């Protein structure tokens, strides 16, 4: 925004050097409609009046155009030239109301208000701040380029991993295929029953339709249930309800819903997944909020309590080792794949420039609270002096205006308020060199507002340097 204003401003500085005679309050662009000694036609064409009725402090035109310089028309507007600063229109009701609105004082020509011409001052200050902002924007934009670059390689990384995971899945497939062959040949008589069973547990793991074309499926509730290490309340019974909750109440989640679930099980998953996948997902452990002591509650040896297959008992004893290992591994690979797909699915901006915010957290301490913004994850508030944390909303969507959708983030469905809505937070992003939360407020009960600075929103600055110098010499 700064650039256009700056240009306008500079233009006006140049233009104002020449005073053009016209009725009070008329902008230059409309001067031609107000020709002295000729009857004036209201700009809406509704009627024509003698010129001496222009600015005679009586409203003759319905559109207010005959009184550009008085307060007589309820719908009129007054143009201040504001030499040295931006020109402006003000409602004509602000003419001679005793309050200085135009920095060139022209709106208070008959009210006795003692206004000072502050246009040059304002102009200078604005130029300074625009320069400063331009400076920031420039540096910020450079940083942004870097971010975009990093995001690109990060994405490629992830895609690479994804394909790795896919190929390990393919390995699994062939293993399963091999097992199947083994089973089929070794236990021909029981084939039909066996197959049914296979299908049953394959179904559970989401492998029921393994085929060369569809490699992967998303994680299901039943699948999650078989992993008691992810039990959220660690009461050792990982119920379907809990799994449903983890999965956001959707049996087979889509990626968006998975996001919410993933936030719940992420840490537990990460500690688990290391045992199975040599190269863990990129998510850096130390940067995620350490949620108390949950992770300690699951010592390694508790975990591999393998899934309780009810049918297991009435099955034959021909379970071989590889089969035993394959199931959990396949699950985690599937989950890992889902996670990756989930992370890739985020809208990190047109060039993924917001990607660097993912899995980071930023804090702001006020007189009463510590606010924490974890972009694409959640916003929370914790009393400074003890007390539990309150969820001010989890990642919802980009919510800026149509032409600038990436300027506002919306976090929704936080902790509910008594007789009020669920808490939610609007995060306004502005361009800066650093990444920092600058303020928080609660304009309406349980609706929070956060100001957040990041280079990722910086726009490419127009090349102003030369322009600036030229015009300042005027």
């Amino acid at each position, binding site marked *: 925004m700064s650039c256009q204003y700056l240009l306008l401003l500079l233009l006006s500085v140049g233009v104002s050097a020449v005073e053009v005679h016209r009725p009070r309050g008329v902008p230059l662009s409309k001067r031609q409609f107000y020709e002295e000694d000729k009857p004036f036609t209201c700009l809406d064409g509704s009627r024509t009046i003698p010129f001496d009725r222009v600015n005679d402090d*009586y409203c003759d035109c319905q559109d207010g155009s005959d009184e550009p310089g008085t*307060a007589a028309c*309820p719908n009129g507007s007054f143009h201040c030239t504001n030499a040295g600063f931006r020109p402006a229109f003000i409602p004509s*009701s602000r003419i001679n109301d005793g309050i200085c609105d135009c920095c060139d004082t022209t709106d208070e020509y008959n009210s006795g208000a003692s206004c000072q011409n502050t246009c040059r001052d304002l102009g200078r200050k604005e130029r300074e701040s625009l320069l400063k902002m331009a400076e920031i924007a420039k540096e910020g934009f450079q940083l942004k380029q870097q971010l975009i670059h990093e995001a690109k390689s990060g994405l490629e990384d992830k895609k690479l991993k994804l394909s790795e995971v896919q190929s390990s899945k393919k390995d699994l497939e062939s293993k399963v295929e091999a097992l199947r062959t083994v089973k089929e040949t070794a236990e021909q008589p029981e084939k039909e029953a066996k197959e049914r069973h296979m299908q049953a547990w394959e179904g559970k793991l989401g492998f029921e339709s393994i085929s060369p074309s569809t490699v992967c499926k998303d994680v299901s509730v039943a699948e999650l249930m078989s992993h008691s290490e992810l039990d959220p309340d660690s009461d050792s019974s990982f119920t379907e309800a809990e799994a449903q909750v983890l999965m956001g109440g959707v049996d087979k989640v889509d990626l968006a819903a998975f996001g919410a679930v993933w936030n719940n099980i992420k840490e537990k998953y990460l500690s688990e997944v290391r045992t199975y996948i040599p190269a863990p997902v990129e998510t850096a452990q130390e940067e995620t909020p350490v949620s108390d002591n949950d992770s300690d509650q699951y010592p390694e040896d508790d975990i591999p309590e393998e899934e309780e297959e009810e049918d297991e008992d009435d099955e034959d004893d021909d379970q071989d080792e590889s089969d035993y290992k394959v199931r959990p591994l396949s699950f985690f690979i599937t989950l890992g794949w889902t996670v990756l797909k989930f992370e890739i699915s985020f809208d990190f901006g047109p060039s993924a420039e917001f990607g660097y915010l993912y899995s980071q957290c930023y804090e702001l301490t006020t007189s009463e609270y510590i606010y924490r913004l974890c972009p694409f994850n959640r916003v929370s508030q914790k009393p400074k002096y003890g007390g539990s944390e309150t969820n001010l909303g989890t990642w919802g969507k980009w919510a800026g205006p149509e032409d600038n959708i990436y300027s506002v983030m919306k976090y929704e469905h936080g902790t509910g308020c008594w007789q009020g809505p669920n808490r939610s937070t609007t995060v306004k992003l502005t361009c800066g060199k650093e990444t920092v939360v600058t303020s928080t*407020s609660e304009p*309406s*009960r349980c*609706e929070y507002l956060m100001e957040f600075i990041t280079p990722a929103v910086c726009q490419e600055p127009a090349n102003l340097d030369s322009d600036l110098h030229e015009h300042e010499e005027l």
Partner: protein
Amino acid sequence: MASFTERMVPVLVLWLAVCLAETWAVDRGNFKTCDQSAFCKRQRALKPGESPYRALLETMELTNTRLTLQLINDNNKVRLLLELYRLQGNITRVKINELKPLKPRYEVPDVLIREPPTEPLSLLSQDENGVVLSLGSESQRVIISARPFRLDIMEGSDVLMSLNSRGLLTFEHLRMRKDTFSYKVTSTVASTTKEEEEKVEDGMWEETFKSHSDSKPNGPSAISLDFSLPGVEHVYGIPEHADTLRLKTTENGDPYRLYNLDVFQYELYNPMALYGAVPVMLAHNTQRTTGIFWLNAAETWVDISSNTAGKTVFGKMLDYVQGSSETPQTDVRWISESGIIDVFLMLGPTPKDVFSQYASLTGTQSFPPLASLGYHQCRWNYNDQEDVQSVDAGFDEHDIPYDFIWLDIEHTDGKRYFTWDPHKFATPKEMLQGLMDKKRKLVAIVDPHIKVDSNYKIHNEIRSKGFYIKNKDGGDYEGWCWPGSASYPDFFRADMRAWWASMFAYDQYEGSMENMYTWNDMNEPSVFNGPEVTMHKDTVHGAWEHRDVHNLYGFYVQMATAEGLIQRSGGIERPFVLTRAFFAGSQRYGAVWTGDNAAEWDHLKISIPMCLSLGLVGISFCGADVGGFFKSPSTELLVRWYQTGAYQPFFRAHAHLDTPRREPWLFGPENTALIREAVRQRYTLLPYWYQQFYHAHRTGEPIMRPLIQLFRKGRHVLKLSVPLMFFNSAAGRDLLVHPVTEEGARGVTAYLPGKDTVWFDIHTFQKHNGAQNLYIPVTMSSIPVFQRGGSIIPRKVRVRRSSTCMEHDPYTLYVALNLQRTAEGELYIDDGHTFNYEKKEFIHRRLSFAKNILSSVNLAPDAQFTTRSWIERVVILGASKPSKVTLQTADGQDSQLEFDFDASMSVLTLRKPGMNAGADWTVMLQ
């Protein structure tokens, strides 16, 4: 602001959530029914019959100014003293007290503006059955019958009012407490020995309600008296109740209750007590209007019965047509817990007379600063200075005028009134200066509960001066309110009030400035953990119990606060103080609002009868929270509420802490425009509102008036279309307002009264005949408002960002002609904010149109004031086209005026006559 403890007590929160979440209504169990209030139950058990009281005529003494007479109760031989006064202006005062009470009984001070001047009484006749006195020079007489005692006021052969005609006079005399043995005395014993004490009933010496115990050291002390009103079908008044304008009969339920209470989420259409109490009832029929002012500050219940109550409209019509019905009669009975009977019978005969009679007793509406008639933007809470600044800027950005922004309790440092939150409001003067630069103002809340905190200056001073209300054991009373543990200053002490007033001095109230005004909330007083959310009745105010004085607490809080605001300016500036609790006389100190309403259509509707009722008993400066306090209004409701509020005297939007923000521009450009238009209509009419307030201040007449009053001669209107009153409001005499208060309305039907009256739609100038039900199609932008033919209304059509910015702007006169082609109006101008009008610094002109001549003449030749305002336009509705228009000014100069005539609407507009608004001038149409 707020009413209750939703945040304070977790247990309660839970409980409320469980029990109230669904119905969202008052918890009736928190408040007493008559049956649960021992004295009410006792008194109400007494049925009409022969009174045990007898007038002892031999004790009668008649001086020039008063008559005294002893009454004796033949059951217990306790004697009472009756005093009867004839007061100037057709008022009769009847006082009854014990002849020799054990200790003095409370008589309400400070409510009457002076000892009312009397007129001579003269004895017309006397025999052993009674006496007849002449009431002044008219044909009015008062007849005192001796056995049983009763009192009738007659005019000619008509009985205007009878007292004790149903034998319900009771006076529980003060007595020594018997030891526990005599508790067992049964009713049989009592009745056999007539001269013995009456039976001792439960609740006479102690009473419990829920977990609260009332010790009642003085025992029973209730009083009661009945009034019969022959010829009266309908009675009005006794606010505050969330009920219809016309009071209902109470035989099948509880009486109307007057006991100032902080009622959480009050229910509509019932007689439960609310925040304020004005014990004044008006009786009205086509011939006469009278009033009863029951001057008692204790808990009071009012029973109403009527012999026509059961009849259908058809039945009444039949009676009317046949002329054969019995005379309608309304019977009223007042019951109070303590004090004396001190009742003023205001005998009219016109509504205007009753208003002026009541005003002569308790004073008129204070004349508020002009700016306070503008729009007020409030919310619990504007969070900090930045928030205030951005809301202020929002009004400019969206070009909506406003005059006051309000700060609720969160602006203080931990609910310590007279302080500021050090983080959120670190530099209040900077904030106030910012508002002042835009000619706007701020209101900050100051509640009467004081945080018990030894680091709080206000608390320490009140405690060290001994100014707190004491509990029955003599210690400072403590209750629970917003700050947690809180004590309550004893506003009944003049020295306490003087100290309180001094706290508003600029050097005492840090951060205050002359554009900051005050809001007194929670002054019933509200005590979260007290019985019925108020103070224990056995707390002590010097010689009196809280029981005796309760309904006066809020009155005194506002009085002391208003006095503080006057004093801080050296007596120059008019104060503005809003109060939630009130009593008779509160009109002298500022504005009231209808408390914590809800964002519901029915609450929008009830705001009309609630403010109408208050206006009838002197309190004109009334409004309801626009948008509704609890809950969140639909956009449609919010817009309709702005449209209604714009035509009510006090115009403030307010919202609960837990509701989403609702500043006028948050609902899309279309709705912003609708709200802007409603607020702008308010501002164009500010000169008229101001003049109406001046008139109310001078005469005591209400500003918002029900149709009954305007057109009392329209017998059919009164007889048959009574329900109209409930939904109509009229601002002043000349505008009839029928705001849309129905969801999804496509039209409203408004009754335009007056057979020979015409009404002009103020937006379209369409003329309508009176005495008809007019169907008006409406859209979301419609606010049906009509100007009465025969009136002249001044407006300022150049709406600016605040009323102060419009000070010097010119006037447009709207002249609406009646069938006789005449019209009259007034124009009042002064500086808008000081008491200098009392020193005759104002302009008051009569504007009249007759015989095609419009003229302005001085109504106050001895007054002096100059204005820069001029007359920019005259719009004559119902005019015919003149051939020329001539203006004649005081210096004898004639000039031709240009004009525009709209033949389709018969509207004549005179272009820019230009004379000064304070000058003499004449405009002739030829």
